[in-house]
């Protein structure tokens, strides 16, 4: 119900149903944890769009969760600036400490890791996003401290 209400609100903000699709997918992602077939169908039903169209649009975008993910999503940049500043050591650290591979999820479902291509914080490299929080100037100590605050 909450889901439908949120989509209703989104619909009010857009001139047509197609326009409301991308934000509605975020709502579905919250509701279902990730963009499953079921979630596409729910969005299609709510927006009265063909399910195939919804899926086509959703799969074009990399920012959505296209598979089940942990409670917290770590998006770590390993692009040039971050790489130079040691981001790859951080990737190794996550592997050793949490058993977390790029693109993977920890066994306890706590973290998922996605490697990002530049989040525009080269001056404070290495940088990452945890869910929607931004963290920069990372090093091996700092990253663990930060992550430990996400339960």
């Amino acid at each position, binding site marked *: 119900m909450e889901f439908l209400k949120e989509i209703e609100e989104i619909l009010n903000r857009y001139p047509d149903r197609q326009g409301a699709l991308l934000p509605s997918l975020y709502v579905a992602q919250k509701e279902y944890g990730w963009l499953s077939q079921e979630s*596409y169908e729910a969005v299609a039903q709510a927006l*009265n769009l*063909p*399910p*195939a*169209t919804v899926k*086509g649009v959703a*799969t*074009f975008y990399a920012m959505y969760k296209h598979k089940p993910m942990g409670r917290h999503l770590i998006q770590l940049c390993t692009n040039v600036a971050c790489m130079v500043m040691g981001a790859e050591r951080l990737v190794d650290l996550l592997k050793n400490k949490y058993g977390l591979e790029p693109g993977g999820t920890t066994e306890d479902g706590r973290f998922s890791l996605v490697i990002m291509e530049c989040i525009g914080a080269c001056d404070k490299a290495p940088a990452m996003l945890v869910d929607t929080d931004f963290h920069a100037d990372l090093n091996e100590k700092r990253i663990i401290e930060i992550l430990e605050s996400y339960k």
Partner: protein
Amino acid sequence: MIKLTIDGKEVELEKPVTVLEAAKKAGIRIPTLCYFEGLSPFGGCRLCLVEVEKLPKLQTACTLMAADGMVVRTETEQIKAARRAMLEFLLINHPLDCPYCDKAGECELQDLVAKYGPEAGRFAEGKRQHPENFDDPIIVRNMERCVLCTRCIRMCNDLQGAYAITVTGRGSHSFVEPFSGGKYNCEYCGNCLTVCPVGAIMSRLHRHSYRPWFVEKEVETTCGYCGVGCSLILQMREERIIRTIPRVGLGLNNGLLCVRGRFGYDFVESRDRLSTPMINVNGELRPVSWQEAYEFVIRRLKEIKETHGPTAIGGIASGRCTNEDNYMLQRLMRFVIGTNNIDSTARLYYAPAVAYLEQIFGQGITANLIPGIANSDGALVIGGDPTTINPILGLQIRALWRSGGKVIVVGAPGGLKRFASYEVVPRPFAEEIVLSAVVSRLVKEKELKGELTHLEEKIKGLKEPAEGDLQAAGVSAETIDRMVTDLKAMETPVIVIGPELLQHGRPSKNLFLTAALAYAINARMFVLSERPNYQGVIDMGCLPDMLPGGRPIDFEMFRHKIEETLGKEVPQNKGLNLFEMIDAAADGRLKALYVMGEDLLFSLPGREKTRKALEGLDLLIVQDIYLTETAKMADVVLPAASWSEKDGTFTNLERRIQRVRAGRTISSGRPDWQIVSEIARGLGDDKVFSSAHDVWEEVIHISPLHAGLSYEDISEGKAIWPYHGEPLRGVEGEFDVEGLDSLPKVDTDAIILNMHRPLYHSGSTSRRSKALISIFPEPVLMMNPSDAKGIGVEEGEKVRLATSNASIEVKVKIDRDLQQGVVSLSNTFEGVNFMRFVDYTVEPTTGSMVITNNSVKLEKVKE
């Protein structure tokens, strides 16, 4: 006037078109890949690049509008290099498995590379891999071959309206997939595989069985599945139809087909086809020679005629047979045997509907052009789902909606779900109340034309439903307001009438109301036709009260004219209709029945009654392509040639006459007209017919409607109503309506069994098509989710479905769009068919049947 120069040629344009189209007009071919005539331009492949003077970069001709003074070049070295580069990009990921690909030989990519190169690619990296998908029995997709032109998607979305497929993923990981990622679960029209330029979406039916250049013969014919009459081409090799294809520019379907027309052709090769004539000896059908069979039929018909008179004999014509076949059967009955006892299953709704409407408005009132629907600004659909009964007509309604027209559906919207402005779903059989309310209101707000006084008088006498009646019908007064407002605003409306309008409630009242509405808003009417030739059956005179050309039998003038022309007597008295023949057979008045191309036992309600009636006959002749349930009861069975094995014509629901052409005869069946002719000769007919063409020559001599209409005219597409013949005029006028001043009671508790008319089937022919069966393999009872919940069943579980006629277990399928209190079952599968459960009564006014005994008991079957 726009003037431009393309490759040195001056081109003049009346109206603005793209450079690609302008070039085509000038006879210059610009290569394309993502462009497809009839689809919106996409501009994605960049093969149509051209040079335009004063424009800095190469332009895509398929999206660039031609402008005055443009100077365009279509083949320069720069362009060739660009095209070669585009193709090299496409080949990075293309598997180049041409030796193994069915498309090779008619592949646009192959042809383009052959012309522009490159001879070798420079990319050494591995190609993307994506396994070929065989989840579907009739369509296979190989996305490694896909060039992402999106032609299939534009086809599926914009023309078909199924929205079943999409590009998933992005970049080199993009593929065209149905929603499920596996099976298409779509309308299976196959129109996507028509437009795919490469071998990415293909039919599985003929996979690896031939190369396109193996096609030995192409036969242009008309689809034998429904009354739209799509044009299609049989591609033949040796004995077989390799595939059927539509062609852009050919016929009213203009390049589109539905699932039945495209994939259903294999019924002609079914192993169930009859291979020999048979005579019943002591309860067993034994093979005999044609000679023996003919002699038997002739001897028995003679005996019966001598002992009981000609009216003890009757004939059943067929909406699946050609005009020539049907003409010959009525000729045998009327002019040789001497009885007007001839009818067909068009009686189940089509013939009464057309007869009734013509009685009010005159002959040809339903003869309107299907392709015109899309240009209308509004449609009212009532009594059935056009997208499943007459799919290509259904697409026209979708197109109407897409171009901004209003579509109002009365009843469950089915395939118009996404394309209806709104639907009005009254309780079962309360359509009459809705229509009465709309008509009453409409004529108050809009003055009638004063043209048809007989109709206007009756409209005045109509009882207007009160608030309470509407409530009982489950429709609000606001809905009626909305309908009236919208209908009034339509300028070029169409009304589409389906079978259900006649088969429930009071057919004459429903038809009258529809007619009144059409009259009030000036609408064109279409009657959906479940069979390819219901209209032809009527026009060939296979009615107990009409001669060929739709001339009433009780007009002496018409009878005499035929008698003069043919030198044969025409019986005077009205014959028996289908239902009367069944009754007459049951009480012994009818002794012999000649059934051509119809499975009465399967197609009629009241099965027990029909069975007893047929059993009581002295002689039952069944002429068919299969050993149907009715054929099993016959005294003699005559194997007929099927749709793809004979010549002739069909008349579609818009009364367009089109040619049916023989591919090759693969069975021992003979054309129906020929069998009938042999029997007629044995009964003393002196006329020899040696081809379907001969038969048609006689038709155009005696039917004033078809006067002078030659096969050549028909082939040239000139056979559109009114054919330059003489339509019947001046007999319209009086007609009756049952219950003008009353309204029906609505039963709100009963669960009603309705006939499901699935897209993938059309009665028993489709059941013999392996392709169609693979999509819809077994009987299912369609149920609304809340009704299913009510008895605790889920999809796939079984229920026991019972009326006093039958009690049978059947699997449940949930249909969200079905209205509550209605379950539906198709009339497709032997043993579990709709008609088996129900009975009928006949409304005297229209002669149409009304389904009865359709309130059912449902019980979950415990595992």
